[in-house]
Structures are given as C-alpha cells and as structure tokens.
C-alpha cells in the first residue's frame, strides 16, 4: 500500500509539470478587417528538450500570410484551399497558406525566441471573439508540445492545459 501511495505521489508530480510553458502571441488584440503581425513567443522547449520545429496552423478567415524569414531556420509554406472565397482589397481569394513550418534550427529550453508572420484578418471574422492559432512545437527525441486546445463556449484559455495562442478581435476604429 505504501508503495502504491508513493508511486501515486510521483505520478502527481510528473503530471503537473507540463502545463506552465505556454506559447503566446505578443499582441493580444487585433482589428478586423486589417493586417495583423503575429509574434509567437516561445519561452521553453518540450520538457527540457530543445525546440527544432514550430508549426503554426492558419485559421479560416486569415489570408495573405507571409512569414518573416529567420536566420538558421527554414520556412515551409503549406498551401491549400480555403473553405470559402475571401475578399482581399477587392480580389476574391480562394486559396493560400494554411500552415507555416519553421524547421532546421535549434532553440534550447533555457532560451527565448520569437517566430513572426504577417497576415490579413478578413471581415468575415467575428468581432468580440478570440481567434486561435494552433501551434505544434516539436523537439528532439520525438518530443512535442501541442498548443492546440481551443476553449469551448463559456471557457477561457486558462481552463486548459495546452491552449492555443489567441488574439482578441475588435471592430476597426
């Protein structure tokens, strides 16, 4: 019995460490429609391991995505069809970048870095909601952290262990 209690305590300790090191967006508020500069702040690796890949999923309604080049990292732009046609300054747009992948670099667990992209937030996005950019952070030895949880109605990011970084949408001034 003593042994099983001890192992339960050990499990407890292991179970709670993962949560704290979120990936977040530097600018927490954006106007729609407008161009938004998304700065993803990566403050930790995965359980102590260095980050070697950062993948950002582009949500629907976000178009004209351009990542900012980054020394030491290769950028891959995964393109695909949108669910509908979006208006980009009068031009109907039906396809574009759906995922950005930064790879090839190495960011130690005790170092900080930012990954930047610029995108157009279309007028189809609803104001007074939060727009989430799911991010998968891959590290050495196959370790990964998935910042992909999108809060359900009535919940906030803090209710989740691995929430996706989000930006609050406000009406254009």
């Amino acid at each position, binding site marked *: 019995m003593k042994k*099983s*209690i001890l*192992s*339960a305590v050990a*499990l*407890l300790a*292991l*179970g*709670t460490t*993962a949560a704290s090191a979120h990936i977040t967006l530097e600018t927490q508020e954006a106007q729609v429609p407008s161009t938004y500069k998304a700065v993803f702040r990566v403050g930790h690796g995965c359980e102590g391991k260095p980050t070697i890949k950062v*993948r950002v*999923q582009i949500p629907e309604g976000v178009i004209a995505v351009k990542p900012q080049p980054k020394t030491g990292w290769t950028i891959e732009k995964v393109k695909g069809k949108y669910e509908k046609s979006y208006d980009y300054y009068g031009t109907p747009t039906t396809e574009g970048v759906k995922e950005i992948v930064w790879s090839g670099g190495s960011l130690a667990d005790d170092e900080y870095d930012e990954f930047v992209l610029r995108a157009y937030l279309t007028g189809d996005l609803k104001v007074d909601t939060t727009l989430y950019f*799911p991010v*998968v952070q891959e590290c050495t030895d196959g370790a990964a952290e*998935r910042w*992909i*949880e999108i809060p359900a109605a009535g919940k906030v990011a803090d209710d989740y262990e*691995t929430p996706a970084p989000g930006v609050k949408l406000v009406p254009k001034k």
Partner: protein
Amino acid sequence: MTAIARATRAMLFAALLGIASLLQMQAAFAHASLIGVEPVDGSVIAAAPASFSLSFSEPTSPLSLKLIGPGGAATALDRYALRDATLDIVAPGGLANGTYVLSWRVVSEDGHPVGGSSVFSIGAPSANAPPSEAELVDWPVRIAIWLARLGTYVGLFLGVGGAFFLHWIGGRSRTATYFGTASLSLGLVAVPVSIGLQGLDALGASLSVLSDPIVWKTGFGTSLGSLASLAFAALLCGLLAFRLNGLGGRVISLIGLLLVGAALAASGHASAAHPQWLTRPAVFLHAVGIAFWACALIPLAVAFVSRSADAPMVLRRFSKVVPLAVLSLVAAGLLLGVIQLGSIDALWRTAYGVVFLVKLALLVPLFALAAVNRVWLTTPAEQGDARAVLRLRRSILAEIALVVAIFAVAGAWRFTPPPRALAMAAAAPASIHIHTEKAMADLTITPGRAGPVRASIVVMTGDFGPLDAKAVTLVLSNPSVGIEAIRRPATKPGDGTWHVDELTLPVSGRWTARIDILVSDFDLVKLEDTIDIRP
C-alpha cells in the same frame, strides 16, 4: 383413476397452460423512459422531502421501489399512487441528512421492466461516496425460493429416481407408488413456482407482485428457464413411468433419470463454471448418482416397513449396483467442489464453503449408515433375521431424513456465490462509454478495483466510424481525495485498441477519466466521464 391421479392430471394441465402462455409472450418494441424525477438527480435539498415522484414517457406500474440511505440500508417504498404516467411515492418519515439513492424498477405498458436510480442529498452530501446499490435481502422471497428448490430436489431425486428404481430394481407396491407420486406432485408444483420466484429475485421485487406476468417472463428468461423445462419433463416422465409396466416403463423411467441430470447441468453455479466440458458432465453424473442412490430409499423403506416378501431380494440387487452410483456421485461432487472453491481456506472463509462443509458433515453419517447397512445388516436381513430387518428399517428412515436435510442444505447454495465466481467478480473490469459529437471511446479498466490495473481504450468517431488517432492519452484523477491527474500515454499493440499497461489506482471510489484523442496534428478531442473503481 384415483383421486390423486386426477388431481395430478389437473395440476399438470394447469402448469402446461401456464408455461405455454409464458412462451407465447412477445418481446416488445418501445419501453417507458424516465423523463423527470423529484428530487432531481444529483440535487442537494434543504429538508427531507414528503414525497418523491418519477415521471415516465408512458404509464407504468411499479415492481420495486427502494430508498437506499446514507448507511447503505435499503427501505422498500410501498406507499405510492399512479397519476397518469407519474408515480407519486410517499417518502418515509425521519430521513436523516446525507446522500440517498432512489432506486426504481417499473414495468412499462409494453411489458418491459425498466429500472434506474437517482441520487440526491438532504442537507449536504454524505462525507463518504454515495452508497452504491445495496442488496436488500427480501426474506419471504428468499425462503420461498429455498422451499421451491427443496421441493424440486425431492420431486426429481425421490420421485423420478423412485420411478426408475421400481422399474429397474424392484419393490413396486401401492405405498411406494403413492410416495413416489406425492414426491413428483410436489416437484410439479415447486418447479413452475420457482420460475416466478426467480423472476421476483431477478427484478428485486417482493412476493406481492408474484402474479404479474412480467415476473414470470423474467424468471423464465434466466438460466432457470432451461432447468425448469427439463425438470418438468423429467417429472412428467416419472409420472408416466408410474402408470406403465414392462419395457415402456423402464425406458420412460430411464429417460426421466437422464433428464434429471440434464436439468441440473443446464443451470446453476456449478454448470456455469469453466471448463464447461468438464463441469457440465460432472453435474450430470453427480445428479444422476444422487437420483440413483436417493431413489432407493423410499421403495426400500416401504418394502421393509410393510414387511414385503421380496424386500431382501430388492435390497440385494440394489446393494450390487449402488457402489457405482456412489463412486460417480462422490467423484463428480469432489471435482466440482475443487473447481468452485479454488482454495482450501475458502471452505471456512466464504458462505459457499460453509454450506459445502455442512453438506459434507451430513454426508458422513449418511455414508456410515449406508456402510452399516451393506456390511452388517444386508446379509442377515436377507436371511430373515428379524432384529437386522428392524435395524435396517430404522437405518433407511434415518437415511431419508439425512438426504432431505442434504437437499435443504444444497438449496442454500442458491444464495451463496461460489468463491470462483467471487474471485471472477473481483477481477471483473470497470468500463465506461463516452460519446460526444466528435468522438467516442470505450474505456475498460481491468480489474475494476484499486491496485495495479491495465486500461484498454477503443476510440471511434461520433458516428461509429473508424478513428485512426495519432495518439491517445489517458488522464485519471480523483479530486475528492486530492489525487490530481495521473497521465499515461496509451500504446497501440496493433489490434485496433489502445493500451495503458503499467498503471496503479491507489484508492477506490469515483474517478474522473479523461481520454485525450489526438485526431490530427492540430486537432485534439477530450472525452471525460466518471468511472467507479471498487475497493
């Protein structure tokens, strides 16, 4: 035709009619479902309620209504009124604060029993977890079941066995026929009645609803149904054999004896044990052995009491074959005992074992008497020694008393699950099904009790399609005792399931289980529900 024969025939006819009407009942389509309950499930109310109410989608009639209190004691709720499809139940007075379970079982108009329970608390929830479905021992039902079982044994072993004896060994007389027919009649009443009682027991209902057809249908649907059919057929063969002479009687009585074995092998704890290729034939041999031995007692007693001239001859013929029957009976009985008990200490540690010991204790004097009869009394009695005949008569009457006592004790096994089954129940898994729009999962924790366990998870899409998940993580927590998330990634052995092998659940009780299914790189579905882990 004698009065007894006429009465027997009338009884037979009635019983057959009853069984035929049971068989004709059809399964129905829609059942009543609960649409509302007062107090609301999971609610905490300030003061003890004066009444409870259950609202169903269609009119129902109650079979069993119970209130299980914070201490686990159950009270039968027998004061209720039906108002359309709503059941208003008068609450017992003086309910203390704590958590209660309102447990109900009703029959909907289509004849289907439906049951469920609702948990509520008065004042505040009890400190310990809500009491689980406690067993309310309904003594009248239990005693009736036991009596019906005793009657069944007497009818099968003394009645059907008796018919066999008269045809194959001898000793036929009016008195022997009378006792045999009486035993068979007792069995012919006890067997159908036991179906109704089994139904009551299965539904957790009391004797007052015995007349409800659903009770009989339920009883017939259990494994007792096949026992009852075969036993009834055996009793009929016995009855027929008493009326026939010559070869026909011999054949019918033999069929009856074989049906006794088949009936007992078709139902009961022992027949359910594995390996069945071994246990079923063993039960068959055991039953036929008992029938053969017990069957001799009444005709022999009658022969000696009535000082019949051919009594010694009958005794000699019986003595020649009885060792074979006793050998098969004892060997099969011991084998079954070993399988059922599993270990020596189960003999005194479990109710089943105690019944086994009492039965053994009664067998010792029975065997002693049988040995005395055979070794010291048979030969002098055959030679007409009056004192030996007197002793033999007393000894046979004592044997009959012991045999009936053994039937009575064996009947108690109906209520004591064998250690084998207890061990299986303890090892039984706990499982839940979680179903959401996006995905669903079956989680099985084996064994379903505190300690080292294994978990097995099957995931599917919300509409029962295959779900090829990238990863599955099991997260278990028990906030009520302060155990935060125990998180384990599941592995995929390749059979379509996900496994977590090295897992220890330190305490029993209600755990929160969450299954995180990584559907694709950016899509994680979390399913959460509670699962009850036994101590």
